[in-house]
Each structure stands twice: as structure tokens, then as C-alpha cells.
């Protein structure tokens, strides 16, 4: 990066500190003065938003854990104790449960942003992979968190998902028992899920630091996908992006508050307000909305093991994006065909989400299969093919230089 900014300690204390723990230098270089492309649009505000949501989830989660009882006989009632007896317990719990939905909403926009503008491409492969690990851990954490209220959906979603693990060859049986702590979802399952649900967010927190570190080595991508060429292309992160990101965060917070205060149960399933009953299976077992696309992929194929492999494969494939899409041009702005397939892909993911909530029969099953095929085809067939065949549109030379780059077309 260009290092034409320098931290100069202003008084004797900061000079003293700077030679011992250069934390102020670090803050200055990585938060305050960090050179950021000046043309980032609002899709780039979600990293900031996600950081805040992670912190919100951790704070509300820690408070909830003070009042929650991770025991299958007490869990359901302890949630109601939080809702009714703990001061503002309903606020903390609704913030936590809706917070996870907001977290996933933001992470999906963040990921689609990366997909559209080619943010996973060289030199940001590690940044992207760290993001994929964070996303996977988020899914694990959210799934375990969903089990904690010990409602009907908690119990049966856990039963369904853990049974799926059992279909894996060789390790399946022992892995299932390890997850369950027995032979069915029961108190030991709840205990370990609680323990891990508390642990993993802190691992995510650490990974977020690595993610930001990996971001700060090459610097931000930007809507043109053209690399930063000099000082004329950047502004300092503070105040320009702290203010802009905070504005976007407040807009997102408005949506969050609408759910907390006016529609707190809209994103959950009513069955989870019925205490878990191992003798009574709900009519339809569905996961939370943000996992529905994977549920649709799972149920799209008749073979259980193949479904499981596809479901995990749909996340694993994300790790290989930098090597599936080898096109040098990053931004979809200059790739008309990629752009088209990308938007079909977005619609495909939304459709998969819708199908995940339906019973896989008739037209729904057919649609699940078609959209599952497209999901994988987009990564495995379309991306490599477009990398070879697509002729990108003319591109600007630099972020602040709109002149067309004549050489770029020769690639």
C-alpha cells in the first residue's frame, strides 16, 4: 500500500507507549488513516455492519447465558423466565434471535457483493477463504443456537440434521454419537450445543481480525475492480468511511428495530413456542429462513447421502471460487455475460430459499432440482467457461481516471 501517511506521536506519553506497545500507531494506520478507495458504494458498508452485529450478538448472548439453563428439563422454562421475569429480558432475547437473522441478511449481501465485484480474485483469495470459514462457522453457531430454546422445531431440526451426519460413510455413526452424546437428541446434546454455541462466536471474532488483516494487505476492492494507483484514488477511512458506514449501519438498525419491537416473531416458527416433545413430530420440520436454500438442496435428490454431500458441497464450492473464476477483470460491471448469470444466480438462491420451506413434491421438487443444478453449474461450469470465452467491455484506466484502458482489451 502507499505509505504516504505516517503516525507521529504527539506527546511524551504516546512517544513512550509507541516504543513499547504501538497500539496507537496500529489504530492510526489501520482504522483512522487507512487509505480506502473513494468510489466504494453502499454495498461496501456491510463489513462494518457485520462487525457491529457480531458484537451485538456476543453482548446479548453473554447476558442471555446468565439467565438461561442448559438442561433439557429447564431450558424451555428458562427462556420464558428471561421473557417474563428478567428486566428487559424480552428485549435482549428478541435482539439476539432477530439479530441472527439480520446477521445472515447482512452476510448474504456482503457475499453477493464479493461475488459481483470479483472481490475473491487475486490478490484477495485468502481474504475470501477466511470469509467462507466465518460463514460456515456462523451456520454452525446459528444451528446450535436454534436448538437452545428447546422448542419443537429446535428438537426436530437437531434430530433431522444430526441424522444426516449419520449417513456419511465410515465416520457417520461415531460422529453422530459424538454430536448427540447418546443415541437421540437429549440433555447431553443440549449441553454440548450450548457450550459450543458460546465458544464459536469468539473463534469467529478472532477470524474477523484475520479477515480484516487479510483485507488490509491488498486493500479494498472497489466497484471498478481496478487496483488503486495512487493517492488520488483513496480517502482516509476516518472520517470518510466511518461516517458513511455508520449511516448505513443506522439504516440497517432501523430494520432490526422494526423486527425487535413490532414483529419479533415474524422470522421464527410458531412451533418453537411449544416445548420439545420427542413423541410428537411436527407436520413440517423447517430450519430458520437463512438456511432454507441448503435445506432445499438437501431434499432435491432422492438419495440421502448424495443430498448431504450436495448440501455440504454447496458451501465447499465457495472456497474454490478464486480458482474457478480466473478472469482477470474483477468487476461484473465490465462483464455483461457474467453479470447476467450472476443475477440469475441471485434469483436462483432466493428461489431455493422459497423451495426450502415447501414440501418437496410435484412442481416444487422439480424446481428444487433445476435450481440446485443451476447453483452448482454457476460455479463449476459457467464461471470457468466465461473465464475463457467472455470478452470484457472497455474499462477505465484507474479509479479517478475514466479514460478507457486500451491495453486491457488485449488480455
Amino acid at each position, binding site marked *: 500500500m502507499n505509505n504516504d501517511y505516517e503516525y507521529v506521536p504527539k506527546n511524551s506519553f504516546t512517544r513512550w507507549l509507541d516504543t513499547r506497545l504501538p497500539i496507537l500507531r496500529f489504530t492510526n494506520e489501520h482504522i483512522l488513516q487507512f487509505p480506502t478507495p*473513494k468510489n466504494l*458504494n*453502499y*454495498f461496501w458498508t456491510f463489513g462494518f455492519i457485520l462487525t457491529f452485529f457480531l458484537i451485538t450478538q456476543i453482548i446479548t448472548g453473554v447476558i442471555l447465558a446468565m439467565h438461561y439453563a442448559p438442561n433439557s428439563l429447564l431450558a424451555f*422454562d428458562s427462556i*420464558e423466565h428471561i*421473557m*417474563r421475569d428478567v428486566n428487559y429480558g*424480552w*428485549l435482549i432475547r*428478541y435482539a439476539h434471535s432477530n439479530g441472527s437473522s439480520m446477521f445472515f*441478511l447482512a452476510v448474504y*449481501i456482503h457475499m453477493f457483493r464479493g461475488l459481483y465485484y470479483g472481490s475473491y480474485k487475486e490478490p484477495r483469495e485468502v481474504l475470501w477463504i477466511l470469509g467462507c470459514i466465518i460463514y460456515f462457522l456462523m451456520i454452525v453457531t446459528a444451528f446450535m443456537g436454534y436448538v437452545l430454546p428447546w422448542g419443537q422445531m429446535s428438537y426436530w431440526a437437531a434430530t433431522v440434521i444430526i441424522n444426516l451426519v449419520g449417513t456419511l460413510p465410515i465416520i457417520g455413526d461415531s460422529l453422530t454419537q459424538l454430536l448427540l452424546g447418546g443415541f437421540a437428541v437429549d440433555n447431553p446434546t443440549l449441553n454440548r450445543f450450548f457450550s459450543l454455541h458460546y465458544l464459536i462466536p469468539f473463534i469467529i471474532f478472532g477470524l474477523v481480525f484475520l479477515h480484516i488483516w487479510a483485507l488490509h494487505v491488498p486493500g479494498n476492492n472497489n466497484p471498478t475492480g481496478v487496483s488503486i494507483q495512487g493517492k488520488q484514488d483513496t*480517502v482516509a477511512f476516518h*472520517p*470518510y468511511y466511518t*461516517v*458513511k458506514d*455508520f*449511516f*448505513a449501519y*443506522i*439504516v440497517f*438498525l*432501523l*430494520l432490526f*428495530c*422494526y423486527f*425487535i*419491537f*413490532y414483529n*419479533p*416473531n*415474524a*422470522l421464527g*416458527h*410458531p*412451533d418453537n*413456542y*411449544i416445548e420439545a416433545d420427542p413423541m410428537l413430530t411436527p*407436520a*413440517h420440520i*423447517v430450519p430458520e*429462513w437463512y438456511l*432454507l436454500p441448503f435445506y432445499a438442496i438437501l431434499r432435491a435428490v432422492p438419495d440421502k447421502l448424495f443430498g448431504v454431500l450436495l448440501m455440504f458441497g454447496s458451501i465447499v464450492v465457495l472456497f474454490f471460487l478464486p480458482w474457478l473464476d480466473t478472469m482477470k477483470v474483477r468487476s461484473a460491471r465490465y462483464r455483461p455475460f457474467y453479470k447476467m448469470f450472476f443475477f440469475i444466480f441471485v434469483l436462483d438462491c*432466493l428461489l431455493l*430459499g*422459497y423451495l426450502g*420451506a*415447501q*414440501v418437496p413434491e410435484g412442481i416444487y421438487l422439480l424446481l428444487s432440482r433445476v435450481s440446485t443444478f443451476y447453483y452448482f453449474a454457476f460455479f463449476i461450469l459457467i464461471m470457468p467457461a466465461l473465464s475463457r470465452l467472455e470478452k470484457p467491455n472497455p474499462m477505465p484506466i484507474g479509479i479517478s481516471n475514466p479514460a478507457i484502458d486500451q491495453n486491457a482489451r488485449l488480455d
Partner: protein
Amino acid sequence: MQNISKILLILISILFLYGTSYASDDVNQETPKILKPGFSFEGPFGVFDRSELRRGYQVYSEVCSSCHSIDQLSFRNLIQKGGPEFSEEETKRIASQYTISDRFDDYGELIERKRLLSDRFPSPFPNKKAAMSANNGSYPPDLSLIVKARVGGHNYIYSLLSGYEETIPEGLEVSGILSYNPWYPGSAGIAMMQPLYDDLIEYSDGTPATINQMAYDVSVFLSWVSEPELEVRKKMGFVVIGFLIIFVILMYLSTRRLWKEVH
């Protein structure tokens, strides 16, 4: 701002898509559309009507409570703001009508005492088995969360309680001990017999106790039992969202002013 509206549009369409997808999953095709008589606590500024809550409590305690518990509710909840707001004396009197044996005397014998404000409502049956054996093998569900635990919420409860029908439509088999109710999912019969009849109880405020009136009032009461924080929540939401709207305008103006020199 060029794409913040785009982002908002995406957010809203995603939420709409998923909001409707769950609903379409659960509403049984054969059941008629749930009745929506309109309740005072709906909408962002809706609050409970105290007299409806009190009448609803009367219906619960004189009718429903013979089979259904409300385990999560304490007597003190009846006093708190946003609820029926009974007076403390009145609530103490209600609580003292019930007893509980939860501690031992010096000889190890259980002591029976009158319930206090801090105690929970008593269950009509000592345990689940007893409840099932007294109800032809069906368990009358606890009503503490019933409004949140059913698709359609309070409208479903109202439809169900006011919607019992004597005549079973042709082609439907409803076994002898079950009753027919078109709103009950599956429509194969509900174990609860029609609980409400005109003038079954006498309202203390003189309101005529029709089936619909009682179904309505008890739906209001059960909504409060499910969400006792509803009024506090909406009031706080108004303040929080009001604050955020002012804040977001200031943040927008700051952002615009700051970025003017850059573009």
C-alpha cells in the same frame, strides 16, 4: 445514496418472500380463511383494552382453567402495567383462593399454604398423565404461549373458539369422542369439546356473554398472557425508532457534506 434504495428494496423483497413462504407452508388448504375480527392491540400503536382483558380473565378462570393451565403466569402479573391491571388487594384475594404445598415444617411434613402474588397460577391437573386420563387421552395444552405457538395467533384462537359446528360436512370422518371444528388443522376433529355457549358465564361488567364475545375476550387475554411485554415493547419501539430516524437524517446530512469535497 445511489444504491441504498436498491439495497432496501432487496431487503424488503427477501423478507416478503420468506414471510409468505412459511405461511403458505402451514396453512392447511382445506381450512377456511382465519377470521379477523380486529383487535385493539394490533398495529404499531395498538394497546390492550383493560375491560376486554378483565373479561377475558373471567372467561379463562371460569371456563378454560378447568382443563388448561397457564404455567408461566404469576399472580403478580395481573397487577403489572400493560396487563389487566387489577388492584393489589383484588389480586391477593384471587391468589389466596388457591393453595400450594411447597415447603416442609420442622417434622418433615408438607405445609399447605395460600398462594401469594409471587406464586404461579395452579395447574388443573397434578401432571400430564392425570390430565390425559381425564380428557380421553388428549393433553389440554398449556395456554401460556398458545397465541405465539399457533399460525394465525390470536385470530386463530378466536376463529377456533367461535367456530365449532354441529353439522359435519359430508365426506369427513370425525370419530365419536372428537368434535368438528373447521379451523382446527387437518379438520379430522378436535379433542376439545365446544367450550363456549351463550350465557355460559355472567360477566361482572354486565356485557352480554355471547359465544363471540367470550371467544373475543379470551383471545385478548391469552394474547396478553403470551406477550405480557407487548405494550412496553411497542412504546419503547416508538422512542427507539423515533430517535433512530432523527439520527439517520443527521448521519445522512453529515455523510453528504463530508463527501461533497471528494466527488
